[in-house]
């Protein structure tokens, strides 16, 4: 069983895994989560702006939003990250110092905002047109109607899709390593990769992979749970009620006749 032995040694060398564990937990996981959360928060804000522009009646807002979305959704993430990370390195140095960390977050945010913008746009556009009309008919401006009624309904519908997007960001955050991070800034993949190179064994990378799964798998199931709940509603079943009962709402009934003289 030589081959089995070698597989176990290559991928599941517990000593190597255990050795890298503290670093993965203390450095890698923290940085992966920091990068992912920051990119998600910025991505949600930018995405909402892109979505609102994208459904605007004005083409001068719609067209730029469309171009922005097409570019950042159409490019490979690694290309965007390298272009932003290296292209703005000098500018970033003046603001943030030598670390490429903020630029990595920015690049991920831009990519995420293109996807999140589409998610929001789809959600907002799926809200029945009658909602906007009802607001307008009550004298609300377009902006008020969107802010108070339409957008909140749209957001609620796409919460599951947003969690999916967060999962995608967590995975994409590994690409930031291309920018060359300081030792203390390494995220899960880089920590695992460094240890793998050092030991000549892939087990640390497998361990890093397990960390990713610990984040992403529960979230996937949370999404499914929420998806069901949102779709089916959390309605308490109520006993059936006769439609005839509500005729008594209209009280007190006082017969009148109008129009004809009877």
């Amino acid at each position, binding site marked *: 069983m030589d081959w089995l032995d070698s597989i176990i040694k290559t991928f599941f060398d517990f000593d190597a895994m255990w050795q890298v564990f503290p670093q993965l937990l203390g450095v890698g996981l923290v940085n992966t989560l920091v990068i992912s959360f920051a990119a998600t928060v910025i991505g949600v804000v930018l995405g909402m702006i892109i979505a609102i522009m994208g459904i605007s009646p004005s083409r001068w807002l719609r067209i730029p939003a469309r171009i922005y979305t097409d570019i950042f959704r159409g490019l490979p993430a690694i290309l965007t990250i390298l272009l932003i990370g290296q292209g703005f390195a000098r500018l970033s140095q003046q603001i943030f110092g030598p670390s490429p960390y903020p630029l990595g977050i920015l690049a991920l945010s831009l990519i995420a905002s293109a996807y999140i913008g589409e998610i929001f746009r789809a959600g907002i556009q799926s809200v029945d047109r*009658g909602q906007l009309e009802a607001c307008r008919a009550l004298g*609300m401006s377009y902006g008020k109607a969107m802010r108070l009624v339409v957008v909140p309904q749209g957001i609620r519908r796409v919460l599951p899709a947003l969690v999916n997007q967060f999962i995608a960001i967590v995975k994409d955050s590994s690409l930031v390593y291309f920018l060359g991070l300081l030792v203390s800034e390494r995220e899960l993949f880089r920590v695992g990769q460094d240890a793998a190179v050092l030991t000549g064994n892939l087990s640390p990378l497998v361990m890093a992979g397990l960390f990713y799964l610990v984040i992403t798998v529960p979230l996937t199931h949370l999404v499914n749970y929420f998806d069901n709940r949102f779709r089916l509603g959390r309605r308490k079943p109520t006993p059936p009620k006769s439609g005839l009962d509500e005729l008594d*709402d209209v009280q007190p009934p006082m017969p009148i006749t109008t129009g004809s003289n009877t």
Partner: protein
Amino acid sequence: MTYTSPLPVTDGQFYRGASLELRDVTMAYGDIDVIRGVSLTVEPGTTTCIIGPSGSGKSTLLRGVNRLHDPKGGDVLLAGESALRMKPERLRTRVGLVFQHFNLFPDHTALENVALALRNVKGMSKRESLSVAADRLADVGLAERSDHRPRDLSGGQQQRVAIARALAMEPEVMLFDEATSALDPELVKGVLNLMAGLAQRGMTMLVVTHEMGFARKVADQVVFMDEGLVVEAGTPEQLFDHPASPRLQRFLSEVL
């Protein structure tokens, strides 16, 4: 069918409906003309019912009155003032619209549905808006259901909330766009009674309806539209008992 008012008229509650006049109104969807020169006058405090086959432009015409869809030509006069020269938001606080599918806000309670625009359009305080909203819900017989969400209300109740929501803005004219077409048959009467009550209390109403009984009993004027034109207009007796045009005769023979 006799229409009963939800409230005794002796309660002293009256509306001061304004006059509404349409002058040669034309409307289009893109290049297609759907309203081709409609003129009609609704006297203050009276009810005009618009009847006609589907696709005749009835609903479009209502949307032209409150400018959810801007007319292409002609004019709409609200209490003598040109509605087309008013700010649309201002116009719409003076003209209430009730939709076929209610269009209540699903994530708000009945009370909040009525109060929302009071706060955000009329600038009322939270407390004031809730108190007015509660009064309007009581007017339509739904005081006890003010904390229900729309999905926990029947279609008839939802439509009554929608009417309360429109009335809360204190409109001078109410527009009804097939307000009972989406309701189960046993719930239609409750809504029609409510509308008859408004008519009786002096509201000016322009009502697109397929309820011929309501048009006959409650309307002061009935307008028959087809293909974007007013084919015939007059009292309910004239239109229902002595229809002049072959089109209206044909229409009535199909629906009555």
